[in-house]
């Protein structure tokens, strides 16, 4: 029991989240129990409005849990101060959003470096790590490009590089392929899967695309804020 908990990156028990929409309570999450272990490649599937984004935001410390317990990287998120959440996001979690992930005025390599800079790495180390990670995601020729000068797929690859450069415990990706065409999306997913297999990076991503679901190592189905079925 103890051993299992230690290797869990995420531990969620009885999580509820309500939103107030024009005076009406919206039950976005209705009692989620979930455990994600190191090295897993997990997809959260479900139709629009099923609570995928809400769940990922709470895990990422962007939104607050309603009721229930949420532990990320061994730390209890309930009652964490804003600054502590900010540090947790910086040091333990990598984020990939649907689109507009990057700082538009910074080049690819500067965007990746930015995270290291926040972590206080020195200049030489920053540059080396950022460039080598961008090479790993196949962007050695795009280092000096600004986001507007890259395709959507390339921008998402930079986002992947930025998410993993700080060696986080887990990378959260909310519908990372939703804004990409079929083949670009599938290439991005291949990249993520390879990083997961070769380096053991833990991914938790959401999707409503069946192509994406098929490649997941583990699938969690959400309906109306409840987990309805899981496959291992």
């Amino acid at each position, binding site marked *: 029991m103890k051993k299992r908990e230690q290797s869990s990156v995420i531990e969620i028990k009885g999580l509820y989240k309500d939103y107030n929409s024009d005076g009406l309570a919206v039950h976005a999450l209705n009692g989620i129990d979930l455990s994600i272990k190191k090295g897993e490649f997990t997809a959260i599937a479900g139709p629009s409005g099923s609570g995928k984004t809400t769940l990922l*935001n709470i895990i*990422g410390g*962007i*939104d607050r849990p309603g009721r229930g317990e949420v532990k990320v990287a061994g730390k209890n998120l309930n009652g964490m101060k804003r*600054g502590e959440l*900010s*540090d947790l*996001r*910086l*040091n333990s979690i990598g*984020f990939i*959003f649907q*689109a*507009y*992930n*990057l*700082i*538009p*005025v*910074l080049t690819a390599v500067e965007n990746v470096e*930015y*995270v290291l*800079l*926040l972590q206080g790495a020195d200049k030489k180390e920053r540059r080396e790590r950022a460039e080598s990670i961008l090479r790993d995601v196949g962007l050695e020729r795009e280092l000096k490009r600004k986001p507007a000068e890259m395709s959507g797929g390339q921008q998402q690859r930079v986002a992947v590089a*930025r998410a993993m450069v700080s060696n986080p415990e887990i990378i959260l990706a909310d519908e990372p392929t939703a804004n990409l065409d079929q083949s670009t999306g599938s290439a991005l997913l291949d990249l993520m899967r390879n990083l997961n297999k070769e380096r053991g990076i833990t991914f938790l991503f959401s999707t409503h695309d069946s192509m994406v679901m098929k490649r997941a190592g583990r699938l969690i189905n959400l309906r109306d804020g409840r987990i309805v079925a899981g496959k291992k």
Partner: protein
Amino acid sequence: MIIYLKLSWRNVWRNKRRSLIVISSIAIGVFFMLISMALVNGMNYQMIDNTISTSLGHVAIHKKGFDDNMKISYSFNADSGIYEGLNNTPGIAGWAPRVKVQGIVRSSEASQGVMITGIEPGKEKGVSDIFNYMLNTDGSEFLDNPAAGDVLISEQLAKKLDVVTGDRIVIMFQDSRDEIAGEALTVRGMFRSPVDSFDKYVIFTGIKKLQKAAGMNDRISEISIRTDTRDESTVVKSGISPFIKDPEVQALTWQEMAPSMMSAIRLYDAMMFIFFGIIFITVIFSVANTMIMAVMERFHEIGVMKCIGTRPLNIFIMIIFEAVNLGLAGMAAGLLAGTVFNVVLGATGIDLSLFSESMRIWGTGSVIYPLIMFKDIAAAAVIVFLTAFLAAIYPAYKAAKIKPLEALNYI
């Protein structure tokens, strides 16, 4: 911290047109601020210099009370101690004794109340600029013999009295026994100074002639001193004061002799600052407005920055830097334009002879030489810096407060 400088500088150029509008509005504000400051400085210092060079002198030695009441009874005997002081105090470029008596000048046509000033022509050349203001038409020339019955009057007064060089006029005044004395003098020359009141009210005759006519023996009203620069007045005053043994006699600086001129200058400076205040309140609003728009446009982006771990303080600093960048760019442009403009016009001067009568009343002369001073440039720089900073506080605070969750939902 450098990354936020870099970010803010690049962000400034994301919306080139908008930034250029703000930058140029700041530049124009700074430009006009420098021009008006330089003009006011130029006018003030020309007024000061003209007043000093015509009548005041940089430092003067008087009997106490003379300043308030220029009567013969306030004259004194300059003893050898004073002369020793005049010859031994550093910073003195020249000095001249004068007798000043209030009286009336009359011709067959008109009369005018005047200040009759007795001078020693040779020494006077080293102190005041009357010699330089002499006209050299119609045989007009400067005095040479302090005992001769000659008089210098302004061109303006000559017109009023309807006299020309060589004509005779009569001066009347109270002598040392408080009796009315009169003296007929020959107009030896005419002058024209930049100061209207001076031309209206001051005439010159030989010091010996006036002393004799007033029964003053060797007593004088003042010793006027020219210092090497106008800023040395205080130093020279304290240098000369120990040599003055008579407790009733004192040295005064031009600042002390013309308190109303000094307060006029201070008032003018204060008015300039109100004017700048108005300019920069408008600048504050234009910068603040731009920054609020910039923050709103980047709502999502700032949210992403916070999601990946940027602290609110860093966002705050980034936005402040952005406004300060706008301010500094505008300031640089404005300072450059303003300095070039003022240096060029400072050399050529601005000819305001169109308004020359009122300029003469103000005592500045009709050509203004804008004078740009380092302290004004520094003041402009500090004001712009503060303005940009103040203008950015609210938008930066707003940006720092952006909630990542709301920002993510907002694309």
